[in-house]
């Protein structure tokens, strides 16, 4: 599904990713862990084509995303859902509108949008909050909105960059269970996190990064 082949990324003289080779199969849930500055966010940003690697190849399906034309990047990004630590919700849009935006950019009809958004908001259990604005939501509700926005377009991959970073433990678990459920449909989840408890309890594949290098890659791994 996703294949990093000798990927390196340099920012000036700083080597953020150093010769990363990593294969992620369809339906996998992978934690990317490591200290700050280890390269976790850079890895995710390369997968959304926000950054290009300095060298190496990244295959998503049969496509080398480092080679796709700029004009084809939007189409590629529709296959990847992204969830952020700070939610990145738009202040002037309701929960419904935030989620609808994903489908609006894809050019879906109003009828399709109504149906898909309703289904997704019910799935993440915030349908009753659909008319509220971000300031009226709790942290957990905001993150569920962000997850709904990421998955409403039925992406093949969901990238979550510290999605529980700003949440209390109970709320964080709710978010993780939701991501786990999404993973059970066959969607690849790639989650960068610092949360040891979550990683160690969930027993999923763990890739440990340190100074831009993979230092450990274990199935049902632990974060020490």
């Amino acid at each position, binding site marked *: 599904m996703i294949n990093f082949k000798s990927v390196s990324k340099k920012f000036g003289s700083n080597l953020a990713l150093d010769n990363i080779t990593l294969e992620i199969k369809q339906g996998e849930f992978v934690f990317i862990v490591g200290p700050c500055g280890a390269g976790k966010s850079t890895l995710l940003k390369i997968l*959304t084509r*926000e950054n290009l690697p300095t060298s190496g190849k990244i295959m998503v399906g049969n496509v080398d995303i480092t080679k796709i034309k700029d004009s084809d990047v*939007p*189409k*590629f*990004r*529709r296959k990847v859902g*992204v969830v952020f630590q700070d939610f*990145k919700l*738009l202040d*002037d849009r309701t929960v419904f509108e935030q989620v609808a*935006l*994903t489908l*609006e*950019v*894809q*050019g879906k009809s109003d009828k399709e949008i109504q149906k898909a958004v309703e289904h997704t908001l019910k799935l993440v259990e915030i349908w009753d909050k659909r008319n509220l604005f971000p300031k009226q939501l709790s942290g957990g509700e905001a993150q569920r909105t962000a997850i709904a*926005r990421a998955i409403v*377009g039925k992406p093949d991959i969901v990238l979550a960059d510290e999605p529980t970073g700003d949440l209390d433990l109970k709320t964080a678990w709710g978010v993780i269970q939701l991501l786990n459920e999404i993973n059970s449909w066959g969607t690849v989840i790639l989650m960068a996190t610092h949360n040891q408890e979550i990683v160690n309890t969930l027993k999923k594949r763990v890739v440990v990064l340190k100074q831009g290098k993979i230092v450990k890659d274990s199935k049902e791994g632990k974060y020490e």
Partner: protein
Amino acid sequence: MKRAIKFTRRNIRRTPFQAIAASMVMLLTFLALQAFIILAAGSQTALRYFESKPQVIAFFKEGTTNQDVTAIENALKQEIRVTNIKFVSKEDALQIYREKNKNDPTLLELVTASILPASLEVSTKDPQDLAPIADILKREPVISEVIVPEDVVATLTSITRIIRYTGGATVGFLMVFATLVIIMIISFKIRIKRTEIEIMRLLGASPGFVRTPFILEGMFYGVTGAVLAWIINYSLLWYFTPFLQGYLEDVKLLPVNLLFMLTLLGGSLVVACLVGAIGSFAAVRRYLKI
């Protein structure tokens, strides 16, 4: 496009004060622009009116015969500079006098056709031909006096020229100013919407999807300003028409022609769309990197 219009509407509705400020600036720009165009068109019409009026008036001495008048008329007809010759008899002159003083019976009682001189009104193609035609008429022994209103035309010509040049320069300046205002407003909007733009990019929005609402928004401000300015200008013209008509007398400027005003509206809308589109496109190119 339907979705782009929806996004534009939402952008405008959710930042109403910015939208009002932007439309007001465009309103002022188009108010001045349309006022200049109305002024330039009005002065042009006034000039045409004065140019088309009998510009040289030659009064005949008492006892001038019809043969003398015909001879002068025939001589003038040979002149290619002359466009029209009109003989005003003593009776015609009395008729004109009565018409002009119909509200003053005292003045009408005192005047008879015998004390009014017959005259010849001569029009020329160009105001510059007035003086040579006047010289020809002055040489005729049966003519007592020649009036040349060339100063009015010369003044009006120069005023029209000034309006045309300063109007052109001002309109050009205002166009640049309006475009810069749109660039400033749209770039400001792009800045405050950078999170939304970033999200849309990550959700897979095409560059066109992100850019189009900003371009439509710029066009909307231009069009709103132009339409409001047109309504204000037209209302002011309508309101002042009775007052101005007293000054303009025979010059057929007012009430202003509806077709002219509709053309002005159409032209303003085209210019507004262009200014809005060019301004916002420039802002999008400069500040919106997708």
